[in-house]
């Protein structure tokens, strides 16, 4: 069988990726995660001295903590299989990436295994997150200096 024929056969047999279904699943589950976070934020606003502006920090920390716990118990994996990008894009995906890498390399020891590989995935998130935050802040600073927008 030559290469072309094989490729044709492969294209015929391979099931089509359900893009629309995946998008819908990601949209619903990602939205659900945000809904949970909104309730946590409301909890902090109602019962503690946090305003809408300051409640975001403890909310983010709580969401990361919850996703780390769920990853440790193996629940987040099942959820992510269904949700796809809907579970990877929110902040919970970051917690999942850190802990799953740590669990995976646990057998190599704490220092070189867990410590060295913990931020294998999350490292890029931190790097590009910090860089994009810097770029956005720079643009906003320039716009404020020019008087286009205010802080």
């Amino acid at each position, binding site marked *: 069988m030559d290469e072309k024929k094989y490729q044709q056969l492969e294209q015929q047999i391979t099931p089509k990726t359900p893009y629309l279904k995946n998008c819908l699943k990601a949209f619903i589950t990602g939205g659900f995660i945000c*809904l949970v976070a909104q309730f946590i934020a409301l909890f902090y606003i*109602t019962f503690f001295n946090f*305003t*809408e*502006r*300051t409640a975001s*920090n403890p909310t983010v920390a709580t969401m990361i903590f919850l996703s780390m716990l769920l990853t440790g118990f193996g629940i987040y994996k099942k959820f992510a299989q269904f949700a796809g990008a809907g579970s990877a894009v929110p902040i919970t995906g970051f917690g999942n990436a850190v802990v799953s890498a740590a669990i995976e390399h646990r057998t190599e020891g704490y220092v070189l295994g867990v410590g060295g590989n913990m931020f294998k995935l999350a490292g890029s998130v931190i790097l590009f997150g910090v860089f994009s935050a810097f770029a956005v802040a720079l643009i906003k600073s320039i716009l404020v200096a020019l008087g286009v927008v205010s802080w």
Partner: protein
Amino acid sequence: MRKWLPLVFVLCLLAGCSTDIGYKTVNTTSEDGQQAENVLKDDPRIKNAVLLIHDDRLIAGLRVNTFDRFNKREIAKEVEKKFRKMYPGMKVTVSADSKVLLETNKLIDKKDTEHYTKKMKKISSLVKEET
């Protein structure tokens, strides 16, 4: 049945989100509080507001319409400017943050006039917090 349970649960949770306070004004001073309330009522972007005037302080907690939430800080600043003109010499705090609305509303419902000043100071300091 089990399929519908999560949906029912979420809907029950969301039912708690509907808060309709309307417009509340409490004024313990000799100043005219009605003109401030009229400013809030006349603004079509504001759907709920709680106003408390006590001693030398004025606190207003606003809730703006959903799509106006993008400019809620600007709306609060506008209202604050108007209030500062109306009540010169008063310490004015206006915020569209739900915490301010919640706390001011709680303060009014408790009717604890002795602790108004202390609590109002606290609410004002909360608004100033950045992180």
